[in-house]
């Protein structure tokens, strides 16, 4: 009898990623409704210290799969480790962040264990008998929302976008039972090997994860002008995004692109600067909680979905925003 909610915890540099903690917070709510446990599953090397944090965000149990072979993510090793963990746990629901890693791993594991998977979800509900999940996910680049269920039961798996569920308050008094699962790597030679990791993102916050995103479009007029957005972004601990035009011009990396053929994001605050608002961009950011647009064209479609707009030359307005914020934040 499957039961409980499992969350796959994605680790980065020894810490759980924020989206994993958001999912733990939500899993806690589901599990309370169901009267079931939340299990956090962590794969990697040197991951023991994470257990305390995971307990504080809602895990009843932490299952650690620790091995040298899991130090860096590879599909084969992680799929084996997670499959083993899930076979042991038999959860009713398994949640992943809809990150590059989550999207690479979840379909592979779902196929292996015969589970149904809903990807890139923007909402989840537990209904009926308390074991049944309903997922909501955008299709057609966000032009349509689909309600998805698992008509034949079984393990219900979902990947969920960052910033969908609020991060709960960590409860310092909470503890979790920690279990270790032995991982036996395949005796076969590895089919893939990481040759190199080129970190282009650097210290800058990833667009997909960020709570605040400052984005520039064709109105930026050149790569060098993104400096003014970076200054504002640094002040707000924000990521810098870009529209497809800005990426196609070669001003920004594709990894920063927001839109249908880039990242689809839901930050708390999205500041669009010099972005006209083509439909393919709008579907990438229209689920942001608050949208600000700065554009000199009052007819720009971006103003139709913005909560607050300023019709002005961004080269005049953005530095004033930065200055004003710096003043308020007391720098």
């Amino acid at each position, binding site marked *: 009898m499957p039961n409980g909610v499992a969350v796959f915890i994605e680790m980065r540099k020894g810490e759980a990623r924020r989206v994993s903690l958001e999912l733990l917070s939500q899993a806690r709510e589901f599990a309370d409704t169901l009267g079931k446990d939340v299990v956090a599953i962590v794969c990697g090397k040197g991951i023991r210290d994470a257990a305390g944090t995971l307990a504080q965000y809602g895990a009843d149990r932490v299952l650690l799969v620790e091995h040298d072979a899991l130090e860096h993510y590879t*599909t084969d090793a992680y799929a084996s480790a997670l499959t083993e963990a899930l076979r042991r746990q038999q959860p009713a629901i398994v949640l992943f962040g809809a*990150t*590059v*890693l989550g*999207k*690479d791993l979840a*379909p592979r594991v779902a*196929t292996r264990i015969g589970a*149904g998977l*809903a*990807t*890139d979800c923007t909402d989840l509900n537990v209904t009926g008998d308390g074991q049944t999940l309903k997922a909501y*996910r955008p299709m*057609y*680049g*966000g032009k*349509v*929302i*689909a*309600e*998805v269920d698992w*008509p034949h039961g079984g393990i219900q798996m979902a990947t969920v976008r960052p910033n969908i569920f609020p991060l709960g308050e960590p409860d310092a008094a909470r503890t979790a039972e920690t279990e270790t699962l032995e991982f036996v790597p395949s005796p076969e030679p590895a*089919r*893939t*090997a*990481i*040759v*190199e*990791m*080129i*970190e*282009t*993102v650097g210290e800058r916050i*990833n667009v*997909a994860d960020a709570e605040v995103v400052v984005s520039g479009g064709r109105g930026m007029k050149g790569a060098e002008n993104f400096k003014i957005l970076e200054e504002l972004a640094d002040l707000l601990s924000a990521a810098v995004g870009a529209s497809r035009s800005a990426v196609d011009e070669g001003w920004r990396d*594709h*990894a920063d692109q927001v839109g249908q*053929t880039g990242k689809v994001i839901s930050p*708390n*605050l999205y500041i669009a600067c010099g972005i006209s608002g083509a439909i*393919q961009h709008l579907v990438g950011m229209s*689920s942001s909680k*608050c*949208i*600000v647009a700065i554009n000199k064209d009052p007819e720009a479609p971006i*103003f*139709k*979905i*913005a*909560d*607050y*707009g*300023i019709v*002005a030359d961004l080269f005049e*307005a953005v530095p*004033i*925003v930065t200055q*004003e*914020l710096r003043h*308020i934040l007391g720098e």
Partner: protein
Amino acid sequence: MKVIICLKQVPDSEASIVVRSDGQGIEEQGITFVVNPYDEYAVEEAIQIKEQHGGEVTVVTVGPPATEKALRTALAMGADSALRLWDETFVGSDSGASAAILARALQGMEFDLILCGKQAIDDDCAQVGTALAELLDLPQATVITELELDPGARKAKAHREVDEGTEVLEVSLPAVFTAQKGLNEPRYPSLRGMMAAKKVEIEVRDSASLGLAPDAVGAGGSKTRIVSLSPPPTRPPGQIIEGEVADAVKELVRILREEAKVL
């Protein structure tokens, strides 16, 4: 090198999508259907591989007769042969069931690599490539932006777009790769290519020919189901902050802090 491309025909990205009144699908009238843009990168890459290393390129889709349009586009670009998998029992297949159909067809074929788009821009599931790799017990490299083959060593080096930047992954062949934007610039089919593509006979295989039980595919063989579709929630009308730029900015910052509480 023998390359198989898994391709899907989808509504053009600019198409306006209207949910049918029964919520069970979209209005297809007036929509232009095209090769899924990410699959176009896969087609281009496969043709470049053939140009560089020789070999052949086969394009496969799961879909009704109308999807032959997309197959012929790929043929016109330079693919050698096309295979269409279709049966009325396939209707309602989710990603897992679609991957099972493809896997069954590919199991009997010879190939060095399988190329897919990273996701189809209609259902946006991004599952089929990976599920197919699992069903065929092959290694995978997803969201690739560069691919370099070493046919002698039976290896490939793929650049993957990951959250931290770019991961360079060495993969033993055969393997499944899913294409991300940036992999290449897909060519336009030449007039000669389009003429030649018209003459190619597209092989069609149904459920019986693939040996797929009716309950393994379609709605009955799918672990997930779309209950209904609806338009996305609309945003309430926004507010243009008027006045001199400096004043408007001050007001904006005040609103963001005090009313929207997002700063």
